[in-house]
């Protein structure tokens, strides 16, 4: 490639003319985009600030001073959400992988576990998360079992893990099933056992394929950890709610929302980029 580039070549006059035309076209497109963005966003802003209730909304939802005041309590709550997300996320990953593998295995010894895994997924994917949180949060302590913590954060996490591992298991399983049987045939014909085939050939490809939907689930996990507040956990949502109901100023909600977005948006962008880079490295088509 570089050899050819270095050989004596200078663009023809037609090519120079074409480059000028292309530059003119792209300048015009940038101008159109700028104008259209200004018009649309400007209109929305005008509609917002000229609406009859804007002054009240501004005071009760966008009170910067009050927002600053509640910020420490909301961010302390957010720390709970983050802990729940990462600790829960790790547990979900492990359990979901186990469930997905159980549901795709054909081993006769594992037949009862395969049934159990199917039942588990049916139940926890089918029931609303909020009900699971209430049942686990209030039901498990009522059993008065020794050695089981009645800490609400712990129980809330358990409930979230139960539900999300069912969802994530199905995502992973769909990834496993999406790998073409010819890959399995190739691996088996090299003498790899079915376990090795899963571990070295099927799973690595399956996981790669389900990273985008898993990221989706990870973002909604972070948001849904807010639901454990119904057990009395002071997470970001609950902290905002306490402050809001004390003063009837809803700025804490906006603060909490912005904090969540500050985490989820970069996370999405980062993963998108990671996926793209890996695709480019492996596929000629990915580079286009």
């Amino acid at each position, binding site marked *: 490639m570089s050899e050819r580039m270095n050989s004596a070549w200078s663009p023809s006059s037609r090519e120079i003319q074409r480059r000028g035309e292309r530059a003119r076209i792209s300048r015009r497109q940038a101008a159109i985009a700028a104008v259209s963005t200004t018009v649309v966003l400007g209109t929305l802003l005008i509609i917002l600030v000229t609406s009859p209730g804007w002054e009240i909304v501004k005071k009760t939802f966008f009170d910067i001073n009050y927002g600053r005041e509640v910020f420490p309590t909301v961010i302390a709550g957010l720390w709970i959400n983050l802990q729940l997300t990462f600790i829960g996320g790790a547990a979900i990953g492990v359990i979901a992988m186990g469930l997905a593998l159980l549901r795709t295995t054909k081993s006769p010894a594992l037949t009862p576990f395969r049934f159990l895994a199917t039942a588990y997924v049916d139940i926890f994917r089918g029931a609303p998360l909020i009900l699971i949180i209430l049942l686990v949060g209030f039901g498990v302590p009522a059993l008065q079992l020794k050695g089981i913590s009645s800490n609400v954060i712990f129980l809330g996490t358990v409930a979230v893990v139960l539900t999300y591992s069912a969802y994530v298991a199905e995502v992973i399983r769909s990834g496993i099933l999406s790998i073409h049987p010819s890959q399995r045939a*190739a691996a088996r014909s*090299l*003498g*790899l056992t079915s376990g090795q085939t899963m571990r070295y050939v099927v799973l690595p*490809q399956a996981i790669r394929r389900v990273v985008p939907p898993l990221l989706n689930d990870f973002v909604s996990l972070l948001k849904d950890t807010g639901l454990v507040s119904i057990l009395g956990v002071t997470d970001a949502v609950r902290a905002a709610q306490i402050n809001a109901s004390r003063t009837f100023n809803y700025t804490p909600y906006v603060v909490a929302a912005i904090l969540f977005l500050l985490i989820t948006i970069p996370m999405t962008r980062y993963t998108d980029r990671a996926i793209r880079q890996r695709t480019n490295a*492996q*596929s000629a088509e990915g580079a286009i």
Partner: protein
Amino acid sequence: MANVLELSKIRKSFGTELVLNDLSLSVPEHTATVLIGASGSGKSTLLRCINLLESIDDGQIFLDGEEISDPLINVDEVRRKLGMVFQSFNLFPHKTVLENITLAPIKVQGKNQDEATTAALALLKRFDLADKADQYPDRLSGGQQQRVAIIRSLALNPRLLLLDEITSALDPVLVNEVLSIVRDLKSDGMTMVLATHEMGFATQVADEVCFLESGNILERGSAQDVLHAPKNPKTQEFLKRVHQAGRL
């Protein structure tokens, strides 16, 4: 000469469709047996049955005198002795060329990383692919991918190589680089069973040519006899059609 592979009265059906019917075949050591026949005549199914990727409905398969169609046999151990190359390459897209080749030697044969890598690089070098070792398969041409797939099965030093229409998915100009590897292997004394539509190539490598039709071998013999002086009218008909398609 001992027979590496011995097939005795193989029968296989998919649902109500009988794909292999009472088929018998012997493959002596260091020989190449070429299966020809129209699509759907059972060539691929036969190869998949030999590799135990499909189970047979009746008959027996022997590899070096051992019955591998016994349900109690360890299929993984049998497949270790058999190399298989597919029409659609089936390289592992998430692994580099080198990793594709070393996976089975490391995981199946228990070789260490260095040993497997050295052996793989030697094979790549021999078949002019040394510079592709760290590439991912999608960056390779079809011919290169299929050559890597052949090397991948050679890395296990198979007793018998099964080649299932390995050039059918390739551009005509790429066919020869793949076939030349097979010719090399043939002169190395590799025992092979291959299904192909490349009749010129079949003439060059085949010790025996078998014409399959409706799940059985209608005519068998040397390439000279079967391909150039076929006796069975169905073989004549098939070869005429191949000839018209410009493949002879």
